[in-house]
């Protein structure tokens, strides 16, 4: 164990046990997985993506490029997690990935020997022939050899959630700048949210030995936390990563709560101002062997020693370009008892490292060119810092390469997001504190919650004038993707010199770390090899997420039945009691059929159809849109909305109505019932109910505000049960109506309001089935009472409930149009054979465009009925109509297509509906119905759409 007996921000009173590749290890609360592994002397934890080189833990934050593992817990396994981002939990099972059969004996490590051959573009140049090998051979081969961890094939058992929050000021990051900004904002009264991706506040301060306001940095963090915690207007969220900035001050963040009730919570935080205090990321030095376990960023070395109390090696070499940081690193190593065998100035050149699975030696040249070999097991390196300004750049703002700081800096911001501290290149502690305060005061003034103080802002800290120069072509620029200097040089030489092309050709900056440690070095290398300045290289596009977010968090609770809202009709529980099979139709859970005993769907539907045609059935019609229209101008309004004439519609009568879009095509159909002189109830199809409601609202409010009309959607208020069949009127009589239901008093297409016994009802004599039918509407809370009474009274006629399948067959037999199949957005009333409905005496929506020549042209596809010529061959659904049989290549000229095809239980033969070119003039013709999908071709005869009771006698019985 390399854990010191004292010090650090861990709780030694408790011990957490975990395993790595089956080996049991121990850590403490406060540990990250990385620190726990290092404390157990485990540096070598991964293999690299391409060359399968041994990799260790290089950093202490989200920038970690190499140490990716798979973590398994009670909810399943999750691959590709950085050991530096996972807080240690008891029972955690950690396994290495991308290594077979084991991490130490990875067979694919042999790829490292051929690294010169496997350079950038290798795949594109090598796996070209034969073409058939791309998908079948090469892709599986490459994917097996490369790649990271595998996805757990089992369903994720964890719970996820998505929540919203709003605040005045959102502070991202809790280092010196973030905490000082949050304190100012919070104490000024702003609702303040502070996000920190780590489980402890403090950021880099947790590894700092500096003093703030007379106390240690760690104590100052605790003091600031205590001050913020007691304010009710402050929300502190640790383990919460802000991963993207979006329009209108929306920040999305993902929280991994301590309690495992929910594994991850996606927060959508709407802030009035955002202060980005996300710090900076240290840059590695590019030289051969800079990826070996034991080579670490200097800031990580300091943090592991001081925060986690972990010793990282016995003898160390320090290669840090900044003098103060170099001295601080040496001090930290001395605190840890690590012998510092060499402290390298930045005028030396790091040549390479040696060691198989861990660093054993650093070879370097001094300023005079003399070669030195220094045995060691730890190299602390740093070549400067890159501001973490990703969230700033997400909204399209460019970063510029600043020669003074030698890094990509965000430009001066005029809000709403303000980078502060390390995120804008300020490196010194005093500067960060000052910058946080100044920006917080500025933000409060902008929000008119504080007077303008115009505090000066700290200037970005200049980079050291001397830096370690890159050496040898085999130095890794991007450790995660095994991109070397040679790869970048090759890309430049082969013409992929633009930064975007270089990225895609070499994979520089791709992967789970998105180039956090590699981009600045990459830009410098591109500039060097391309003979241009770093400022001219630019950068690729920064997009969310800043760091990977699990799909579970993005989905939240919306899985399975929670995916979409489900509408249920008032009869749902009654139908469920009868064993109804439901199906989703749009957002509705609709009754499909009602099987009895061991009936198949076909048997049940046939029985239901015959019952309706021969005696009595009942069906739920509650899903239809219902809009109450009132006002002196209600008739005028509806007259403009619908294309047919109904100005003379008497009170108590109902009329079928057709609504067109502005372009003249049919939009929807339904009924208009006149309840009183200025009071109408219109119905719309289930599918178009919401669209019709919105369209009518738009017309009433915007197009014709002069009309005195009010619209109210009453769909959910009314439960609607249609009773259909030859005995429907007898059943209605048996339900004890308090109004006359005789054939003359209550004819077809009429509406009556009254009671059935004690039930308040509206009854409409309309039919979709083609049988005598009454749609009984009652307030939805009385649906069960209505249904029970209908079943009880209807038992005399063997009433059967029926569902959507039967309803569809009945309407196809009758030739009624349906939304989505026949009303498909491309049909005029004439195409559908409904031109007799269209009024020529009034103005209505769609009239002008209906006059277009093309909509009146001869030869348009018309709605027709079809039957198989031999009377028994099933007509394949969705078949194409052709005049000739298919040729030897399975081709035929199409002249139409089917919209519906069923076997009619009533007619006992296959029937179909469809659109046929110039179909109205082709009655009696015989055509082919080809279905390449079903592999069937059937001869069909063209006829009228209505195959059953064409005169409508049964409706008026």
């Amino acid at each position: 164990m390399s854990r010191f007996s004292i010090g650090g921000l861990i709780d030694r009173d408790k011990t957490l046990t975990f395993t790595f590749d089956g080996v049991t290890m121990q850590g403490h609360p406060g540990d990250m997985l990385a620190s726990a592994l290092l404390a157990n002397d485990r540096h070598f934890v991964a293999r690299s993506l391409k060359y399968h080189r041994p990799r260790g833990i290089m950093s202490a934050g989200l920038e970690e490029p190499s140490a990716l593992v798979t973590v398994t817990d009670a909810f399943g396994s999750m691959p590709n997690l950085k050991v530096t981002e996972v807080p240690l939990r008891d029972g955690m099972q950690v396994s290495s990935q991308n290594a077979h059969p084991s991490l130490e004996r990875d067979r694919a490590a042999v790829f490292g020997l051929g690294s010169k051959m496997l350079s950038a573009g290798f795949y594109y140049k090598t796996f070209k022939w034969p073409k058939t090998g791309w998908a079948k051979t090469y892709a599986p081969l490459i994917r097996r050899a490369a790649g990271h961890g595998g996805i757990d094939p089992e369903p994720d058992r964890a719970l996820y959630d998505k929540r919203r929050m709003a605040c005045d000021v959102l502070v991202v990051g809790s280092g010196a700048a973030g905490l000082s900004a949050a304190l100012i904002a919070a104490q000024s009264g702003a609702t303040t949210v502070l996000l920190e991706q780590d489980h402890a506040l403090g950021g880099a301060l947790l590894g700092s030995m500096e003093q703030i306001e007379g106390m240690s940095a760690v104590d100052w963090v605790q003091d600031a936390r205590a001050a913020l915690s007691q304010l009710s207007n402050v929300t502190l969220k640790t383990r919460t990563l802000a991963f993207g900035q979006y329009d209108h001050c929306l920040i999305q963040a993902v929280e991994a709560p301590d309690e495992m009730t929910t594994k991850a919570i996606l927060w959508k935080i709407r802030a009035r101002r955002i202060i980005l205090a996300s710090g900076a990321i240290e840059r590695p030095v590019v030289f051969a062997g800079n990826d070996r376990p034991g080579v670490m960023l200097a800031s990580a070395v300091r943090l592991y020693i001081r925060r986690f109390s972990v010793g990282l090696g016995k003898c160390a070499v320090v290669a840090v370009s900044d003098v103060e940081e170099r001295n601080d690193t040496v001090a930290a190593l001395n605190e840890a008892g690590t012998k510092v065998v060499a402290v390298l100035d930045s005028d030396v050149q790091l040549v390479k490292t040696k060691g198989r699975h861990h660093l054993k030696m650093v070879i370097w040249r001094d300023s005079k060119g003399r070669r030195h070999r220094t045995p060691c097991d730890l190299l602390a390196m740093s070549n400067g810092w890159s501001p973490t300004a990703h969230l700033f750049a997400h909204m399209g703002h460019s970063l510029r390469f600043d020669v003074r700081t030698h890094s990509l800096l965000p430009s001066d911001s005029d809000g709403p997001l303000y980078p502060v501290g390390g995120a804008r290149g300020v490196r010194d502690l005093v500067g960060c504190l000052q910058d946080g305060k100044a920006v917080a005061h500025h933000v409060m003034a902008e929000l008119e919650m504080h007077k303008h103080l115009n505090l000066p802002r700290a200037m970005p800290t200049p980079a050291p004038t001397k830096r370690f120069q890159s050496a040898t072509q085999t130095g890794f620029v991007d450790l995660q993707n095994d991109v070397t200097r040679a790869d970048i040089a090759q890309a430049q030489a082969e013409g992929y010199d633009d930064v975007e092309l270089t990225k895609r050709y070499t994979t520089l900056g791709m992967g789970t770390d998105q180039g956090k440690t590699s981009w600045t070095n990459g830009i410098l290398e591109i500039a060097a090899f391309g003979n241009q300045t770093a400022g001219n290289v630019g950068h690729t596009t920064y997009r969310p997420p800043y760091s990977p977010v699990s799909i579970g968090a993005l989905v939240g609770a919306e899985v399975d039945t929670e995916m979409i809202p489900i509408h249920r009709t008032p009869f749902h529980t009654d139908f469920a009691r009868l064993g109804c099979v439901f199906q989703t139709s749009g957002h509705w859970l609709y009754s499909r059929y009602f099987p009895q005993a061991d009936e198949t769907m076909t048997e049940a539907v046939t029985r239901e159809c015959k019952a309706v045609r021969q005696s009595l059935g009942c069906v739920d019609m509650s899903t239809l849109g219902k809009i109450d229209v009132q006002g002196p101008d209600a008739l005028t309004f509806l007259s403009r909305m619908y294309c047919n004439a109904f100005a003379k519609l008497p009170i108590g009568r109902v009329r079928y109505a057709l609504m067109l879009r502005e372009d003249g095509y049919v939009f929807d159909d339904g009924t208009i019932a006149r309840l009183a002189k200025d009071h109408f109830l219109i119905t719309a199809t289930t599918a178009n109910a919401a669209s019709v409601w919105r369209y009518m609202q738009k017309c009433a409010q915007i197009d014709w505000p002069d009309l005195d009309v009010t619209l109210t959607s009453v769909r959910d208020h009314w439960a609607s049960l249609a009773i259909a069949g030859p005995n429907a009127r007898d059943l209605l009589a048996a339900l004890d109506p308090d109004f006359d239901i005789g054939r003359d008093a209550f004819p077809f297409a009429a509406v009556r309001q009254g009671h059935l016994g004690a039930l308040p009802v509206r009854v409409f004599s309309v039919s979709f089935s083609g049988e005598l039918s009454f749609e009984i509407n009652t307030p939805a809370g009385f649906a069960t009472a209505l249904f029970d009474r209908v079943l009880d009274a209807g038992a005399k006629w063997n009433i059967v409930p029926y569902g959507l399948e039967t309803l569809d067959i009945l309407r196809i037999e009758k030739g009624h149009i349906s939304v989505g199949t026949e009303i498909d957005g491309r049909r005029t009333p004439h195409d559908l054979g409904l031109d007799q409905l269209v009024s020529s005496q009034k103005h209505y929506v769609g009239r002008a465009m209906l006059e277009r020549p093309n909509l009146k042209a001869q030869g348009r596809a018309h709605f027709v009925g079809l039957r198989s010529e031999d009377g028994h061959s099933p007509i394949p659904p969705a078949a194409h109509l052709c005049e000739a049989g298919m040729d030897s290549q399975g081709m035929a000229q199409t002249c139409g297509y089917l919209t519906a095809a069923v076997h009619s239980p009533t007619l006992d033969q296959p029937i179909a509906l469809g659109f046929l070119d110039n179909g109205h003039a082709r009655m009696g013709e015989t055509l082919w119905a080809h279905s390449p999908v079903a592999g069937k071709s059937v001869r069909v005869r063209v006829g009228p759409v209505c195959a059953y009771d064409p005169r409508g006698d049964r409706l008026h019985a």
Partner: protein
Amino acid sequence: MHDHPAAATNANGFLPGPLGLRLDEAFLPLMALNGSPRNLDTLVAFGHYTEIKTSLCLRFSPDTVLISGDIPVGNWRMIDLSHGLTHLRLRGIEALHFLGHYTSANLHSAQLRDARAVRCRLNHYECAIWWATTRDVHILIERSLAQSFCDHLGALAQRHSGVDHLHSQRPVIPEAPDRRG
């Protein structure tokens, strides 16, 4: 039969999870009063609710007031919506705060703390909510969606931890002094 409409949901007790939230359905006779905005302003301001004696007035649309109880004298166009909108009550210390996690509106904004009523989206569900206290929140939702909505609230409630309140800012009571400048 007339007086006892069937419930639209099975909401009749505590939601799962540690928050101790109770969700119940209660029938609310409700009429929609349509009229000109100027006339309706005399009843209740847009976006607000009032309780006058035995009447409850809700106004989430410029030209419609939902009213339960005695209908004020006037020339209104009225529609009964009692069965079309399901009335749910969510009770518990965390009631409003819990809903606030999922509404597109910021329920803790000064404007809504004053109005104590809002029509908004709660995840995919459009609903109207109002509250006299943050511990007793009333919800109106379309009847056909009500059961699905209740199931959804249950699914969300079990994703919460009993210590959530330690990490998030709490609703501020309307009478609390405004500390902002």
